[in-house]
C-alpha cells in the first residue's frame, strides 16, 4: 500500500517489536521499574484508579438514582432555566429534573462501560483476526492484512460516522460497535506482528520440538506473550473511544437514550444545548472527559516509553 498506512503500521509494529523483545521476565520487570519512576505515567494511573473507583462504586457514592425525576427539582424547572444547587442536590438539576451530581457519578460508570466495551470489542475481533492471520499464515494472512490496511486508511471518526449512518437501528450498541470497529485493524496488526516475532522465538521452537500441539502453542504460549503490546494499545484506545462517542453524540448520531448518564452524551446533547442556560451541564462532563482521556493517554504513553529499548540504560 502506501507510506501513510505504512506509517500507521510501523507505529504499531514498533510496539510489537518492543514487547516481543521485552519477552523476558527481567526486561518486563525493567520496564515496570521505569514506569514507576515516570511521574506522568503515575499521574495517569492515579486518575484511572480514581475513575475506576467512582465508576464501580457509583451506587454507593451517588446521592440519588440518576434517572429519577425529583419533584423538588421539576418544580422550578422550565425549558429556559435549570435549577442549581439545592439541599440534597449539590450540583442541582439536569434539564429533566434529575439529580445532576448523581448523573455525573453514574456517568463515570457509563463512560467506562462505553469505553471498555468499545475497546474490548475492537480488541476481541482484532486479536481474533490477528491471531488467525499470524497462526495460519499464507493467503489468509494476506487477505486479512489487506482488509486491515484499507480500514487503517480511513480516518477513524469518519468511519464511525459512516457506520452509524449505515446501521439500520440506532442504539447504544451502534455507537459502541462503530467506535470499536475502528480499532479492529490496529489490534489485528499488533497481534499478528507479535505472533510472527514469537513464532521464531526460542521457547516456541522448543515447545514445537517437544511435540506440543499447535493450538496449545498458540493459546498457551504465543497469545499471552503478545498481551503486553495489546494492553498498551488498549489503554491508548480507551481515550480515543470516549472522545469519539462524545463527538457522535454532538453530531446527533450518538446513543439516542438520554436516560443514560454518559459523559459524552451529556456533553454532546444537553451540554451544548443548554450551554447558556446552565454552563455546568457542559463544563462538568467536558472536564471529566478531558481528565479521564488524559489519564489513559498518560499511562498508555508511559507504558509505551517504558517498553522502548532505547530508554533501557
Amino acid at each position, binding site marked *: *500500500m*502506501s*507510506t*501513510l*498506512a505504512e*506509517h*500507521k503500521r510501523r507505529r504499531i509494529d514498533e510496539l510489537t517489536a518492543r514487547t516481543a523483545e521485552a519477552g523476558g521476565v527481567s526486561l518486563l520487570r525493567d520496564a515496570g521499574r521505569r514506569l514507576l519512576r515516570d511521574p*506522568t505515567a503515575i499521574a495517569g494511573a492515579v486518575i484511572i484508579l480514581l475513575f475506576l473507583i467512582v465508576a464501580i462504586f457509583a451506587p454507593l457514592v451517588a446521592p440519588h438514582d440518576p434517572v429519577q425525576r425529583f419533584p423538588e427539582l421539576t418544580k422550578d424547572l422550565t425549558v429556559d432555566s435549570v435549577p442549581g444547587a439545592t439541599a440534597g442536590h449539590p450540583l442541582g438539576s439536569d434539564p429533566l429534573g434529575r439529580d445532576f451530581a448523581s448523573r455525573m457519578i453514574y456517568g463515570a460508570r457509563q463512560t467506562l462501560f462505553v469505553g471498555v466495551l468499545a475497546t474490548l470489542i475492537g480488541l476481541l475481533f482484532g486479536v481474533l483476526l490477528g491471531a488467525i492471520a499470524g497462526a495460519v499464515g499464507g493467503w489468509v494472512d494476506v487477505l486479512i492484512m489487506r482488509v486491515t490496511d*484499507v480500514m487503517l*486508511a*480511513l*480516518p*477513524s*471518526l*469518519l468511519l464511525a*460516522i*459512516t457506520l*452509524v*449512518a*449505515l446501521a*439500520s437501528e440506532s442504539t447504544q450498541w451502534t455507537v459502541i460497535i462503530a467506535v470499536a470497529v475502528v480499532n479492529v485493524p490496529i489490534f489485528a496488526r499488533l497481534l499478528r506482528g507479535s505472533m510472527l516475532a514469537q513464532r521464531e522465538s526460542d521457547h516456541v521452537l522448543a515447545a514445537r520440538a517437544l511435540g506440543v500441539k499447535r493450538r496449545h502453542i498458540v493459546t498457551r504460549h504465543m497469545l499471552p506473550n503478545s498481551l503486553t503490546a495489546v494492553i498498551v494499545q488498549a489503554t491508548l484506545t480507551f*481515550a480515543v473511544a470516549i*472522545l469519539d462517542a*462524545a*463527538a457522535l453524540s*454532538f*453530531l*446527533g*448520531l450518538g446513543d439516542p437514550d438520554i436516560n443514560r448518564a454518559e459523559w*459524552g452524551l451529556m*456533553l*454532546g446533547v444537553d*451540554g*451544548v444545548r443548554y*450551554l447558556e442556560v446552565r454552563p455546568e451541564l*457542559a463544563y462538568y462532563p*467536558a472536564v471529566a*472527559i*478531558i*481528565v479521564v*482521556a*488524559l489519564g489513559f*493517554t*498518560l499511562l498508555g504513553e508511559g507504558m509505551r516509553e517504558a517498553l522502548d529499548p532505547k530508554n533501557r540504560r
Partner: protein
Amino acid sequence: MVRVVSRRLVQLSVTLIALMTLVFFWLRSLPGGPVDALLGERATPQTREALIRALGYDQPIHVQYGHFLKNVVTGNFGNSIRTGEPVTDVISRAFPATIELALAAIIIAVGLGIPLGYLAARHRGRLLDNATIVVTLIGISIPIFFLGYLLKDWLTQGVHLFPPSGRISTGADNTDVTGFFVLDGILTREWDASADALWHLVLPAVTLATIPLAIIVRITRASVLDVLDEDYIRTADAKGLRNATIRKRHVLRNGLLPVVTTIGLQTGALLAGAVLTEKVYNWGGLGTLITDSISGSRDYPVLQALILLAAVVFIVVNLVVDLSYAFIDPRVRVQ
C-alpha cells in the same frame, strides 16, 4: 514513476467499484431512505406509490444496480434528495471550502508546531518543555466541538472579535472564481473580500488545528531529541561546530523527516475534525455535507458520492506523500 502511478490508478478503480457496490446494496437494505426523505408528512399513499415507481424502486434489484453502475461509470451520481441539485455540483461547491479550512489548519499546526516542538526539545526538562507537554496533552484530550463552542462563546458574543459562523459576511458580493474565497479575493483584486474571508477563517482553523498541532509538537520534540542524541551531533558538538550550524545542517533537517509523515497522517484526522468544526461554525464544506446528508435527511446519493470521494482523496494524498517522501529522502524508493 509513471508505472507506479498508473498501477495505482488501476488498483484505485477496482477498489472504488467494489466499494460502490457494497455501499449500493447496503443502502438499499436499510429502512426509510430516499422515499421517506422526499416525502413530507403530507404525502398520500398514492403519492408514495407514484414516487416509488418514478424512482424505479419497484424494479428488480439487479436492474436498479445496472442503472446505478451505468450512472457511476459515466460520472453521474444522481441528484441530492435534500436540495435537488446534481450531487457533483453539491460536492464541488463544498470541496474548496473544506480544503481552504484544512489548509489554514495545517499552516497553523505546522507553523506553530515545529518551532514549539523544537524549542521544547532544546529546553528539555525545563518549564517551557513541561508546559508544552501538558498543553499538548490537553489539546489531544479535549473534545474539539466543545473547544469550538468555547472559542465561539468567548470571542464572538460579548466581544465581537470574530464572526460566529460562515465563510464570508452575509450579503458580501464577492466574485466566486475558484470557490476558495481567500484566493478569489486575491485573483479578482477584491482585497476586502479576501480579508473578510480570512477573518471568518481564523476561529474554525484554530479549532481544527488543535489536535494536529498538539501531535506535531510532540513528534517534533521527540524527533529532535532523538537526533540530538545521535552520535554525529555529539561529534559535531565535540568538533566545536557553531550551535546555529548544527541546528540548521543536522538537527532540523534530520528531525523533520518523521514530522513530514505525521503531517500526511494528519490529513485523515483533519477530515474527521472538519466534520465537527464545520458543524460548529456553519462552514459550508464537506464536513457539513456529511452531517447533513446523514443526520435527519438520509441523503443517500450524496452519501454514496462522499464515501467514494473520501476513498479517492485518501489514495491520492497517499500517493503525493509517497512521492514527496521520496523527494526529501532519496533513500526511500517508491515501490
